[in-house]
């Protein structure tokens, strides 16, 4: 059951020629040259595909999940909004189709030896969509706005590594005290509290995008509406009809407008995955946000060229509440439950879309990190079940005295099926009596947080940024999402070290060690790692699968037909 993976798709951008110069002094400024090389194809001398293969109408209609909550980049939290904002705006850094970091508004940057100060050299040819020039001052203003307590942005959470950010958000310091300094019109410096290797990646997220000061001051709350919004990305907002569509149009003022082939982009919200697929099938969409569960076989049979699945940087796991019976101080019981799940069945029969069975916290493919793998990962399921039964009995349970527990999850078809599968496996392998409790999302989150009535609960994490730390920090003592009540001083100490380590390889080793400690404490039951799954019009090219699931429209283009030349390049 191998999912159709469109491995290398072509990439059209002259950005390739633009090797960012980074006289990095610390180890982990990403070597940008290591980007995977795109397939060379019918490209003309200027790097564009031959116009004769292009469709006359360069329009893409992208299904986009729920209605975005806002188009103000500093308030945007959800994934749907971030897709749109990535087209409308551009941060100091940006992402190429394969999800790798590329220079955005900043042409190049330096990172100081202590890895705390970043100097950005901005492009000099940039303008806003209204024609006004764009410079470093705009970025300083915008980052200050995002962190200003008066803005009350939830997304500002991401910018906490910046020096004094916490104090400014708490209202203890004015925004001027933030770690920003303007060296000249096109040069700025950002100072961080500690080394943060993923910081350049954060700068490519919406909360770090620039907003036009005049625009914001003129329209206030209304600045992100149709007709008001001034942006600096490859596209401008043409029309926003709530819960109908968001139409973007290519911005002729964009610095690389000549390279942008896709003229218009429609983002179509949808609350129902099956409807979205039907819209795709009747030709109303070129790209779906997702596809319904259960239908892998059907889709693979009927839409083999359209169905695209690809690993995503997220893990699905169950958590134990370590503060209550029966799991308090009972690692052998927790390990028994971890072992007694046949992950292969879950990924093959329940989730179906190419999810990978998982035995650790961090999914593979995150910034080159190789996750920890416990010994039992290589065992057969019979061996695991056997050992599980031994541990279960060692913990004092048996057929006469079975364990009775609840699995709690938030309402969703997938969670339900996975919980059902796990309950049945625990029952069959160990004789555990499991009750399923599904709760509406916010009720569920509150119960998890209170750690009183939870026993085993659905957990999972989809990373904010391309770094394993995003997963590991959840288990730190006192972290807001540490709903497990896990507290291990040696784990915390390892994370502290990770926070100050500047050498990439050493940092990775520390994280690996932390993951190992966590996994041998059996705090979670890893189940599988996520994939993204969607239907894509085979004529749509210029995008690539990536673990971030970020797909800027500005690299996309629509072919006239399923070009045989290009077909040959696909798997």
């Amino acid at each position: 059951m191998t999912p159709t993976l469109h491995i290398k798709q072509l990439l059209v951008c002259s950005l390739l020629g633009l090797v960012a110069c980074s006289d990095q002094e610390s180890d982990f400024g990403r070597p940008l040259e290591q980007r995977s090389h795109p397939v060379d194809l019918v490209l003309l001398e200027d790097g564009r595909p031959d116009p004769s293969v292009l469709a006359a109408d360069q329009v893409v209609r992208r299904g986009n999940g729920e209605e975005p909550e806002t188009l103000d980049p500093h308030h945007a939290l959800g994934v749907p909004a971030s897709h749109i904002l990535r087209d409308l705006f551009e941060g100091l850094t940006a992402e190429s189709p394969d999800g790798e970091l590329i220079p955005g508004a900043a042409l190049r940057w330096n990172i100081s030896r202590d890895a705390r100060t970043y100097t950005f050299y901005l492009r000099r040819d940039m303008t806003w969509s209204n024609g006004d020039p764009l410079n470093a001052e705009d970025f300083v203003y915008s980052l200050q706005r995002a962190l200003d307590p008066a803005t009350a942005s939830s997304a500002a959470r991401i910018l906490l590594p910046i020096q004094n950010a916490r104090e400014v958000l708490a209202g203890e310091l004015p925004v001027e005290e933030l770690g920003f300094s303007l060296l000249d019109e096109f040069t700025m410096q950002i100072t961080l509290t500690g080394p943060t290797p993923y910081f350049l990646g954060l700068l490519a997220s919406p909360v770090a995008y620039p907003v036009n000061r005049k625009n914001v001051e003129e329209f206030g709350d209304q600045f992100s509406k149709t007709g008001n919004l001034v942006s600096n990305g490859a596209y401008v907002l043409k029309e926003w009809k709530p819960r109908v569509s968001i139409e973007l149009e290519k911005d002729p003022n964009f610095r690389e407008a000549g390279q942008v082939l896709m003229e218009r982009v429609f983002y179509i919200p949808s609350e129902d995955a099956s409807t979205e697929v039907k819209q795709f099938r009747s030709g109303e969409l070129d790209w779906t946000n997702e596809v319904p569960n259960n239908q892998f076989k059907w889709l693979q049979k009927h839409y083999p060229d359209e169905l695209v699945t690809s690993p995503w940087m997220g893990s699905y796991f169950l958590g134990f509440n370590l503060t209550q019976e029966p799991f308090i101080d009972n690692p052998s019981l927790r390990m028994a439950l971890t072992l007694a799940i046949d992950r292969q069945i879950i990924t093959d029969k329940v989730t179906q879309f190419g999810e990978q069975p998982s035995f650790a916290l961090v999914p593979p493919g995150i910034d080159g990190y190789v996750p920890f793998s416990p010994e039992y990962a290589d065992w057969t399921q019979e061996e695991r079940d056997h050992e599980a039964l031994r541990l279960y009995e060692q913990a004092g349970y048996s057929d006469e005295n079975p364990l009775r527990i609840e699995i709690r999850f938030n309402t969703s078809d997938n969670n339900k099926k996975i919980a059902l599968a796990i309950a049945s496996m625990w029952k069959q392998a160990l004789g555990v009596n499991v009750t399923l409790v599904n709760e509406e999302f916010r009720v569920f989150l509150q119960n998890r947080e209170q750690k009183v009535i939870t026993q085993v609960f659905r957990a999972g994490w989809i990373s904010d940024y391309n770094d394993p730390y995003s997963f590991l920090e959840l288990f730190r003592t006192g972290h807001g999402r540490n709903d497990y009540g896990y507290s291990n001083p040696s784990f915390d100490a390892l994370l502290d070290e990770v926070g100050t380590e500047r050498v990439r390889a050493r940092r990775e080793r520390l994280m690996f060690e932390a993951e190992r400690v966590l996994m041998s404490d059996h705090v979670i039951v890893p189940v599988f790692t996520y994939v993204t799954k969607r239907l894509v019009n085979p004529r749509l090219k210029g995008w690539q699968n990536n673990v971030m699931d970020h797909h800027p429209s500005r690299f996309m283009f629509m072919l006239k037909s399923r070009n045989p030349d290009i077909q040959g390049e696909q798997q």
Partner: protein
Amino acid sequence: MNSEIKTSNEDLSVSDPFAAAFVEEDVRGRSLWVDAWHRLRKNRAAVVSGVIMAFMLLLVVFGPMVLPWEADFTDWDNTSTPPSLETAHWFGTDAVGRDILVRTLEGGRISLLVGLVATLVSLVIGVTYGAVAGYYGGLTDRVMMRIVDIVYALPFMFFVILLMVVFGRHIILIFVAIGAVNWLDMARIVRGQTLSLKNTEFVEAARACGVTHNSIIRRHIIPNLLGVVIVYVTLTIPQVILVESFLSFLGLGVQEPMSSWGALVNDGAQDMESAPWTLVFPATFLTVTLYCFNYIGDGMRDALDPKDHL
């Protein structure tokens, strides 16, 4: 009172055939129940529906005990398989390999239970409320009906949703939530009937004899409302079953591994192309049941409504 007339009827029938015919006509007008039963029996749709429902009830109650599968057993070798005799999954299996037949029958238990209990809740509230308002009349009536008007202006579904969100989805809560928003119609109908009953001779007679208000309501008003109430009940049950399915659609229905027809149909509707059997079987059970209840209800109304046999 009835039996008295009957005896005199027998006496008369011997002596005077014309008088007998006359009195018989008179008696038929009074013995509503016997008469209604006769008329109901003549309504073919209602009778067939009644038989089907009785069968369905037996199936739903005893079926799961007889069948070889447990409702929550996951047959990993047969996930999403179409109906087949070979696998012994006669209605096929769902995405985690559970037997659709057993789940449909067990879901039927829940759906019918929700239908009955929620209707009973609305019945108890509605009858009591309507009878009291109609019987006492005057200011009491006006205030009570004012309240009904106010509650009428509350967007029902919204309140059911809010209740489910606030208190979580316990099956008892589903009964209460649906029942609590469904009592208004009942209260109105009962009040109207009570108003007209109140002025009938037997109630006035009881009142003249010094019978207390409470026992008049209990002994005279409510029993005489039975006809309306029964019709209302049969027509409300299918509505309630539909409301429950709507809650299932919103993800606010019953808890897994429990299921209801609404929940099963909703699951099946997601995969109507890739696994049509997960939709067709539960949907057939649901639809047949709703049809039957509606036909029985209509039949009863025709049978019990004296206006209709002019």
